[in-house]
């Protein structure tokens, strides 16, 4: 599903965020990406979501070399990737409904169809009763769940999450992870970047570890740990 081949990334200014990183995540797989802050987790996610381009090497999604995707197509390609952020990135002046419906409106759904899907997505994350609320009226965990509903509302085959449990207590964190497990169970590939090692330890998923821009463990070779 996601394949990195010898990927390096140097940011303008000379900071080398990734050095020769290679890994492959299979379709339908759920994996964690860890490392201390600055290790390159966010850069990996940005390369997958085409917010950044690699300096060297290839990034592939479902066999498509992302280098071949023109600027104009990026918007369409992103519709296949659900993205979840630590800071939620919700539109604060819109209701929960409008936030979750945003990807559907962009794709040109009719309002009736969008309403159906938004309610299904909100029900999934347990926020059916908060449709008319504004994000400020919700707790941090609820806001994160709105972000998740927005990411899955158009049923993308791939979910990326950047520190989705960053500001949440352990109980809320495991609830969020349970949601990801549910999506994974219906065939969605999930990649979660987190530095919450306690959370990962409790779960038995593949874990890729980055350190100073290098992949020190791709989660397949036990001995590297």
């Amino acid at each position, binding site marked *: 599903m996601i394949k990195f081949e010898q990927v390096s990334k140097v940011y303008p200014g000379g900071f080398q965020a990734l050095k020769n990183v290679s890994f492959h995540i299979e379709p339908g797989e759920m994996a964690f990406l860890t490392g201390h802050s600055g290790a390159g987790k966010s850069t990996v996610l940005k390369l997958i979501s085409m917010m950044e381009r690699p300096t060297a090497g290839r990034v592939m999604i479902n066999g498509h070399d992302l280098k071949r995707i023109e600027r104009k197509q990026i918007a369409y390609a992103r519709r*296949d*990737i659900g993205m979840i952020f630590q800071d939620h*990135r919700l539109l604060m002046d819109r209701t929960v409904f409008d936030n979750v419906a945003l990807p559907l409106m962009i794709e040109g759904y009719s309002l009736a169809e969008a309403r159906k899907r938004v309610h299904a997505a909100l029900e999934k994350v347990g926020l059916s009763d908060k449709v008319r609320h504004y994000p400020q009226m919700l707790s941090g965990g609820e806001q994160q769940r709105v972000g998740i509903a927005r990411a899955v509302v158009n049923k993308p085959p791939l979910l990326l999450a950047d520190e989705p449990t960053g500001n949440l207590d352990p109980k809320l964190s495991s609830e969020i992870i349970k949601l990801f497990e549910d999506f994974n169970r219906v065939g969605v590939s999930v990649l979660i970047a987190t530095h919450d090692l306690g959370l990962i330890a409790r779960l038995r998923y593949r874990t890729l570890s980055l350190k100073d821009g290098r992949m020190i463990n791709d989660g397949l070779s036990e001995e590297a740990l």
Partner: protein
Amino acid sequence: MSVLFRSRQQGAQQVKISGLRRFLMFWVHHAQQCIGSLGELARYPFASLMTMAVLGLSLTLPATLYVIVKNTDSIGANWQQASEITLFLRQELSQQEVQTFTKRTELAEEVDSVRLIDKEQGLAEFRQRSGFGEALDTLTDNPLPNVLIVVPREGYRTPAAAEELVRKLSAEREVEQARLDLGWLQRFQAIVNLVRDGFLALALLLCIAVVLIVGNTIRLNISSKRDEIMVMKLVGATDAYIQRPFLYTGIWYGLVGGIITWLATGALLWWLSGAVRNIADLYDSQFRLNGLNLTEMGVVWGLAIGLGLVGSYIAVRKHVSAIEPR
């Protein structure tokens, strides 16, 4: 069609919405964004109205100048139609010769009518009007020539044709001098042309100013929505989709700005009409200022909307694509 996943079709196709429905939905979404951008303007009524007023008032000046040029053109046309040729006849002609020449001229095909002012009549008129009455009594001889006023026939009244007629008449043996008072008409026309050219240049400059003002306002709108635009790009919005509300905002600016232009032009002409009536009365003229007619109002409106759209288009082209999610 999905870019990355061939088997996965785009949402709207996936849920089996017919082509017609999707075509309709495209317009429904357009309408929603159009109304939405109006709502956005209504959230900051004062700022929006200021931009609209700048646009409207900027167009008022060229619109008013246009009305004035249009009106002076119509005055010029009136005067041009009334052009008369004055023939000063030779002193030594006898009464008989003057009569014959008058008859002959009247029969010429270019001539509509002639009017003879003989020297006695001329002197009497001069005595009455000039106020030199008694001084003239001291003259032993009448110094005035016989004068023939020739009015050209319809079709020979344009400056060029009238000039040609003057040339022909002045070649006559009986004519001392022929005068077509075109000089002042040409000067007047030249001034009108100057005003018109000046008004065109001014209008062009003001139109450019309007585009820049709208462009700058939209640029500020875009940068205040920077975060929102980033989020929209992250969930797969195309530049075109993000641009649309801003383009509609430009159209709304023009729509309301055009109406402000109508009102302001109307008010300005109403303000001027009193002074114009005074002048016209002094010249015994029935002349009244004609405002913008329906077509011209339409043109002004279209121009305002077009300028709003162009201004916002320039801004979105440059600034929406520059915002990249981080």
